[in-house]
């Protein structure tokens, strides 16, 4: 059984906008969510910038009960819950249900427990005072905490799984939900991923010298994917969520349809042939993109837009080279390509989900968001693809097919193919 899978709901907590209207406005107008963080200067981090959602903790009372909210400390769970429940509302279904929703599952990605919240645990245990910790720590320390909060709130009764594949996580979550519906195991899947980059994770990235070491004084210009002056990435926090549905199920309930998922692929370069813990094996990347195209029944020239991984490290050039080889397109024939990270930084585990929400919005609202901070494209990139493939202003145009990819530590690749929805394919 092969079912068509469509997108019927979107939710987002992004550094440059919380909720779909604010996020849509931000990505159409090239609004940056990167800020200078004074604490990071005190802590002597080299990079002192981050993409931070302007999140009001008190707003959580609109999403979860007072009892659940009391004792909730984890920001990654909070972001995930808000994005997921917003996506659910957006799909036109109420939160409340007495019976489990047996036909609906959840695949949500998460990286690690919020270490800032866990600091209190370490303090109590080390002071031989663990008995004061109470009942609410374990559910927030477990990696599946976010998925448990979401599925519990909505009574989701199908497969509920938490996935984790570093920066490839979000796209992988969406792919897993898509495959599950495609093969008929569920009618609807709430998918996405969340990330809160706490101070300790941030410090560890800073020490790896993968974060930018320039631009602390001009935060909004500091995230520069594909630029000659790119100096590394800027961590971002947030969450993205998508409601995927079996097409017939969505049509029966007269749901609004944003887009269709045509296919996708997830693989690993096996940390061979140039692949490592932190670098992608290009052969793996190329195979992943090609496989996504094949199982979507497409060729390179069908792609209107690429939503790249493109973090603003020196891996950007190789990523462009890999896309070019996978699509068999270069120079002016190459599709338009953009990186949301120019506005929000690299949201790590949440990147694929937030960027997929942006991708779907570009299809639904017929535009291509700009790459901000790309006044000086890297000549090593423009020697592969034409400069015209790198929009620096919003373009209003019909967008039919978009390829969205993310690549993560552990040499993991994920690629998704989204399409404008046409009832008759």
């Amino acid at each position, binding site marked *: 059984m092969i079912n068509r899978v469509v997108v019927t709901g979107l939710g987002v907590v992004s550094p440059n906008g919380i909720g779909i209207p604010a996020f849509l406005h931000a990505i159409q107008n090239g609004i940056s969510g990167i800020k200078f963080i004074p604490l990071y200067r005190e802590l002597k981090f080299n990079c002192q910038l981050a993409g931070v959602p302007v999140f009001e903790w008190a707003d959580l009372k609109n999403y979860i*009960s*007072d*009892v659940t909210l*009391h*004792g909730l400390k984890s920001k990654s769970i909070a972001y995930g819950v808000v994005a997921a429940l917003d996506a659910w509302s957006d799909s036109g279904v109420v939160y409340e249900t007495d019976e489990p929703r047996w036909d609906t599952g959840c695949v949500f990605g998460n990286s690690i427990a919020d270490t800032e919240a866990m600091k209190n645990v370490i303090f109590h245990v080390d002071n031989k005072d663990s*008995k*004061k910790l*109470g*009942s*609410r720590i374990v559910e927030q320390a477990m990696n599946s905490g976010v998925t448990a909060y979401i599925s519990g709130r909505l009574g989701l009764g199908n497969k509920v799984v938490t996935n984790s594949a570093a920066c490839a996580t979000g796209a992988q979550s969406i792919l897993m939900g898509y495959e599950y519906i495609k093969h008929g195991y569920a009618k609807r899947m709430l998918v996405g991923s969340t990330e809160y980059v706490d101070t300790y994770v941030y410090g560890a990235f800073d020490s790896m010298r993968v974060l930018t070491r320039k631009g602390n004084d001009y935060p909004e210009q500091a995230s520069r994917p594909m630029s000659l002056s790119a100096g590394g990435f800027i961590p971002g926090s947030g969450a993205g969520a998508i409601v995927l549905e079996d097409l017939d199920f969505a049509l029966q309930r007269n749901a609004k349809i944003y887009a269709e998922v045509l296919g996708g692929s997830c693989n690993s370069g096996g940390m061979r042939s140039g692949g490592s813990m932190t670098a992608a094996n290009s052969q793996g990347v190329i195979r992943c993109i090609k496989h996504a195209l094949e199982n979507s029944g497409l060729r390179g020239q069908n792609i209107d837009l690429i939503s790249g991984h493109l973090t603003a490290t020196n891996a950007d050039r190789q990523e462009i080279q890999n896309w070019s080889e996978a699509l068999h397109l270069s120079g002016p024939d190459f599709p338009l390509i953009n990186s949301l990270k120019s506005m929000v930084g690299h949201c790590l585990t949440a990147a694929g989900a937030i960027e997929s929400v942006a991708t779907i919005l570009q299809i639904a609202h017929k535009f291509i968001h700009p790459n901000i901070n790309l006044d000086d494209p890297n000549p090593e990139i423009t020697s592969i693809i034409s400069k015209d493939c790198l929009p620096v202003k919003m373009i209003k145009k019909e967008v039919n097919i978009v390829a969205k990819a993310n690549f993560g530590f552990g040499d993991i690749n994920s690629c998704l193919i989204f399409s404008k929805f046409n009832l008759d394919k």
Partner: protein
Amino acid sequence: MTRLEILEELKIVFAPYTPNKEMLHSINEHTDIIKDLKINSANLVDIIIDAENKYHIEIDNESAENMVNVGTCIDVISKKLESIK
């Protein structure tokens, strides 16, 4: 502290954990924490921790197990308060 005073204090301790806020106003010594106030059994440990912090007492496991309704909670707390006088 009288039993009535402790009962009034317990309303504040229970408040964050009960979805049944209406009922909180009318609790009496027979009110069951789980059945009537609909408090999740896992949260009983949080209530005990909060009570310990509030009254600067220590509630041992055996006493904690007896804290099933408002009356038994008052029993345990008043006994502990007596002993530290």
